[in-house]
C-alpha cells in the first residue's frame, strides 16, 4: 500500500492539501440514504460521513407525509399491490426487479426504524399508523386508496433523519459536518476516495477510502419554484459526470402539485391523503375532469399537469397562476392533529389560516427520478449498464436503480433512500470482507479540486453568481418544466451555453478561506450548469410523453421506440446518449389511467 503524505500531493498556487484522512468507508451525504448506509457499515467498519450541512440539517428532514410499506396495520394490503402501484406510477419505466426488492424489504426497513426508536404515530392497538397517499391503491388499482404510508404526524422525514443520526452516534460514526465534496478520486475504474473542502476552517482534505458511497440528494434548485432546500443543488451528479461516468433518465423531473404560492414550499400530499380538495377559480374540483376515479389522489404528474392546464386556460384563482387547496371541511381538530405542520407553514409563509381559508398553491419542482446508474446493490456502473466501478456506491435521490421510472409515487422515496442506503451498507460490508487493502492514492488526487477552488477564489470578472443562477432557474421553469416542446428546448440549449460563458466571467466578493458561502454558491452553480445540460438534452432527445416528462409535440407514450432508459455522458463538451432496456417481470405495460 502506498503511503502518501500531504507534501507529495500536487499543490496549485498556494492552496495545499491540509490533511489526508483514512477511513474504511467514506460516505458523502447525511440524509436518509447516507446515514442508513452508515448505520449498516459501522456495525463492522470505520465509517466517516461528510456533509456540506450538519447531518440533521439534511434535506430528508423536510419530508412530511410518510414512508410506504404494506404492513397491513390498518387494513388489508399486499406486497404485490404495492409493486403494481409503483410499476404503474412509474409509467412502466421502473425496473421491476428493483421494485420487487423495494416492496419486499419495505416492511423490514420500516420496522427497523421503529426498533431504532423512531416515534411513529400509532393506531389504537399500538401499531405503526398508516395513511393514504396518491397512487397507492387496493387490489391492483381496482379498489380505492389504501392506508400504506407509515407516518409520524407530518414530520416523518424529521423523525427518521434524527433517529438515524442518533443511531450513528451510538455506533461511533465519525462525522465531518460542513465539509464540501469537491471531486471523486477514481483511476482505472477503482474508486480511491474523495477530495473535500473544510467549510469552517477553509482547506483541502483528501479522504482516502476502500469504499465511497454517495447519498448527495436531488437538484430541485435548478428551478425557480421548488420544494427543495437551498442546498438541493445536485452536486453529486456533476461530480460523477466530471469523473467520466454517465447519468440515467435525467429528463424525468417531478413537479409536486401543492407548493405554497410563490414560495414553492411543500404542502405535503398528506393534506390530500387526509381528504383535501383542489379547486379552481369557479370553485370546481377540476380533477373530476382529469382523473374521475382517483380525483385529488391521482399521481403527481397528472395532478400537476391538470393544475397547470387550468392555470394556462385562465381558470387559476382570479386568472392568476395558482389554484386553491381547500382543507376547511376537514375541521380544526383533524387539521391540528394530523396536519399541524401544514397549518403552521401556511400561516407562517402565506398568512393563511387553513382552518378558515383555502391555501393558494402551484406546482413546484420536487424530485429527480434520474441519477447515478447503480445495480440493485447500489454499486455504480462505469458504463451505465454492465461494467462496475470498484468501491463506489450511490443511493437515495442522487441514484437511479430505477424504482421510480418516469414518475415517483409519494412516500416511495424516503423508502428508497433508507432501503437502498441499507443495501449499500450491506454491499460495502461484503466488499470490505474481501478487499482488505486501501487502493493506492494517485499523487495528483487533489489537483483538479485545488484548481477549481483556486480559480473560483481568484475570479475577478463582472457577473454575479446569483444573477446567473436566477436566469437559469427562470429559464428551466419556463422551458423545461411541466410542459416541454422541441423549439423551447432548442432555445434553452443555446441559453445554457450563454450561461456557461457568463459563469466563466464571475466575480466573488468573499475571498477569504473560512466559512466562505460565496465560494460554495459558485461551486454549486458550476455543478448545476453541468448536469442541467443533461436534463435539457435528455428532454429534447426523448420524443414521447411518459410520466413526468410531457412533450406537447409528442403527447403520447411510445413504447415501441422509448420503453428504455436513457444514459448520458459529457465528452469534450458534447452530450452522448446510450440506452438500456427496462426490466419487466410481472406487469406488462398498459395504458395508464386513473
Amino acid at each position: 500500500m502506498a503511503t502518501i503524505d500531504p507534501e507529495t500531493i500536487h499543490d496549485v498556487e498556494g492552496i495545499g492539501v491540509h490533511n489526508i484522512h483514512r477511513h474504511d468507508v467514506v460516505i458523502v451525504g447525511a440524509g436518509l440514504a447516507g446515514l442508513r448506509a452508515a448505520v449498516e457499515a459501522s456495525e463492522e467498519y470505520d465509517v466517516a460521513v461528510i456533509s456540506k450541512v450538519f447531518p440533521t440539517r439534511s434535506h430528508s428532514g423536510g419530508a412530511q407525509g410518510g414512508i410506504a410499506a404494506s404492513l397491513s396495520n390498518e387494513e388489508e394490503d399486499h406486497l404485490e399491490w404495492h409493486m403494481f402501484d409503483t410499476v404503474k406510477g412509474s409509467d412502466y419505466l421502473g425496473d421491476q426487479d428493483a421494485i420487487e426488492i423495494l416492496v419486499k424489504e419495505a416492511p423490514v426497513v420500516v420496522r427497523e426504524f421503529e426498533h431504532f426508536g423512531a416515534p411513529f404515530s400509532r393506531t389504537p392497538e399500538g401499531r405503526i399508523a398508516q395513511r393514504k397517499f396518491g397512487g397507492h391503491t387496493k387490489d391492483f388499482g381496482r379498489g380505492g386508496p389504501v392506508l400504506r404510508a407509515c407516518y409520524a404526524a407530518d414530520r416523518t422525514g424529521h423523525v427518521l433523519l434524527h433517529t438515524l443520526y442518533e443511531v450513528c452516534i451510538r455506533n461511533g460514526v465519525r462525522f465531518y459536518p460542513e465539509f464540501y465534496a469537491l471531486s471523486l478520486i477514481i483511476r482505472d475504474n477503482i474508486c480511491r476516495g474523495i477530495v473535500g473542502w473544510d467549510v469552517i476552517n477553509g482547506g483541502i482534505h483528501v479522504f482516502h477510502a476502500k469504499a465511497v458511497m454517495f447519498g448527495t440528494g436531488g437538484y430541485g434548485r435548478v428551478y425557480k419554484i421548488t420544494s427543495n432546500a437551498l442546498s438541493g443543488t445536485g452536486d453529486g451528479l456533476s461530480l460523477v459526470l466530471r469523473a467520466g461516468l454517465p447519468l440515467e433518465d435525467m429528463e424525468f423531473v417531478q413537479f409536486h402539485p401543492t407548493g405554497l404560492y410563490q414560495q414553492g414550499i411543500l404542502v405535503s400530499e398528506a393534506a390530500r391523503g387526509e381528504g383535501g380538495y383542489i379547486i379552481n377559480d369557479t370553485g370546481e374540483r377540476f380533477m373530476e375532469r382529469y382523473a374521475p376515479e382517483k380525483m385529488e389522489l391521482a399521481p403527481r404528474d397528472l395532478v400537476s399537469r391538470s393544475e397547470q392546464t387550468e392555470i394556462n386556460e385562465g381558470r387559476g384563482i382570479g386568472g392568476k397562476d395558482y389554484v386553491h387547496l381547500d382543507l376547511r371541511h376537514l375541521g380544526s381538530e383533524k387539521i391540528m392533529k394530523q396536519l399541524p405542520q401544514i397549518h403552521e407553514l401556511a400561516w407562517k409563509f402565506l398568512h393563511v389560516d387553513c382552518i378558515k381559508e383555502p391555501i393558494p398553491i402551484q406546482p413546484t419542482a420536487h424530485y429527480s427520478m434520474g441519477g447515478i446508474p447503480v445495480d440493485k446493490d447500489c454499486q455504480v456502473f462505469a458504463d451505465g449498464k454492465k461494467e462496475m466501478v470498484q468501491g463506489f456506491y450511490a443511493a437515495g435521490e442522487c441514484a437511479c436503480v430505477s424504482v421510480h421510472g418516469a414518475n415517483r409515487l409519494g412516500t416511495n422515496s424516503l423508502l428508497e433512500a433508507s432501503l437502498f442506503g441499507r443495501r449499500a451498507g450491506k454491499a460495502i460490508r461484503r466488499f470490505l470482507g474481501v478487499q482488505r487493502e486501501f487502493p493506492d492514492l494517485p499523487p495528483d488526487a487533489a489537483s483538479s479540486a485545488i484548481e477549481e477552488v483556486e480559480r473560483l477564489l481568484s475570479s475577478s470578472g463582472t457577473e454575479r453568481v446569483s444573477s446567473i443562477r436566477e436566469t437559469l432557474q427562470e429559464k428551466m421553469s419556463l422551458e423545461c418544466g411541466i410542459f416541454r416542446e422541441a423549439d423551447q428546448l432548442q432555445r434553452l440549449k443555446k441559453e445554457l451555453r450563454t450561461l456557461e460563458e457568463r459563469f466563466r466571467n464571475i466575480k466573488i466578493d468573499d475571498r477569504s478561506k473560512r466559512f466562505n458561502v460565496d465560494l460554495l454558491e459558485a461551486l454549486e452553480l458550476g455543478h448545476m450548469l453541468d448536469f442541467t445540460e443533461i436534463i435539457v438534452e435528455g428532454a429534447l432527445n426523448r420524443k414521447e410523453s411518459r410520466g413526468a416528462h410531457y412533450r406537447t409535440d409528442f403527447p403520447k407514450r411510445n413504447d415501441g421506440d422509448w420503453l428504455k432508459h436513457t444514459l448520458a455522458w459529457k465528452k469534450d463538451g458534447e452530450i452522448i446518449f446510450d440506452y438500456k432496456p427496462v426490466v419487466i417481470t410481472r406487469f406488462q405495460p398498459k395504458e395508464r389511467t386513473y
Partner: protein
Amino acid sequence: MATHAFKINRYNPDDERRGHYMQEYPLDVQKGWTILDCLNEIKWKQDGSLTFRRSCRSGICGSCAMTVNGVNMLACETQALTLKSSTIVVEPLRGYPVIKDLVVDLEPLVESLYAVKPYLITKTPLPTDQERFQSPEERAKIDGLYECILCGACTSSCPSFWADKKYIGPHGFLKAYRFVADSRDEGTREHLEALDDKHGLWRCHTIFNCVEACPKDLNPTKAISELKKELVREKIG
C-alpha cells in the same frame, strides 16, 4: 429611500484587526419576505461576503437561528414586516463562539447532545418481524419533545450556559427527556448519568428563557423539572 435598514453584526476571522462591527444595509422589503429572504437579497444583490447558515427555508432544518432585534428566532420563518420596525438588527446567537458574521460554532451544542446518550436504549430483545407496540397515549408522552430541530436557540438564551460552556443546556435536557419519557426506552440511568453533575440539571435556575426562545414552541423547562424528579427517584430507588 429604502423601507428598512438592516444592521448586521459582522466578523471576519481572516481580518482579526477589524474585530466585530455593525454594518448597515438599506433594503426595500416586500410583503411576504422573511428575514432569510432579506438576508439572501442583501447577500445576492449587495454584498456576497455576508455570511449566514441556511438550508430548508421552511423552519425544519434548524440552520438559521439568529438574534433579530434582540430575540432568538429562525430567520426563515419570521416575516420581516411583522417585526413592525424599520430598523432590523441581526446578530449571531449569543453564547457560542462566532465563526464568521452570523455563523456560530455549535460544537458545545453537539458535545452536550452526545453526553446524554441521545438514542433509544433497550434491553429486552426486539420482536422479530414486528414493531414494538406503543399505545397512542404512551406515544403522546413524547409530543413536545421529539420535534426539536437542534437549532440552538434555547441554549443560546440561557444565562447558565453563558456562565458555563460545558453546561448541558435545555436542548440536551429536552433530548434526554425525549428518551426517558419514551415507553420503549430502558436506559433512564444511562441518559441521566451526565445530568447529575455540576454542568447538569442542578445548574438550571428555571429562568424560562429557553421556553421563550424555542421557535418550535417546545418546553424544555418542563422536561427539566420532570428529569429532576426522575433523578431523585433513581437515587432513592
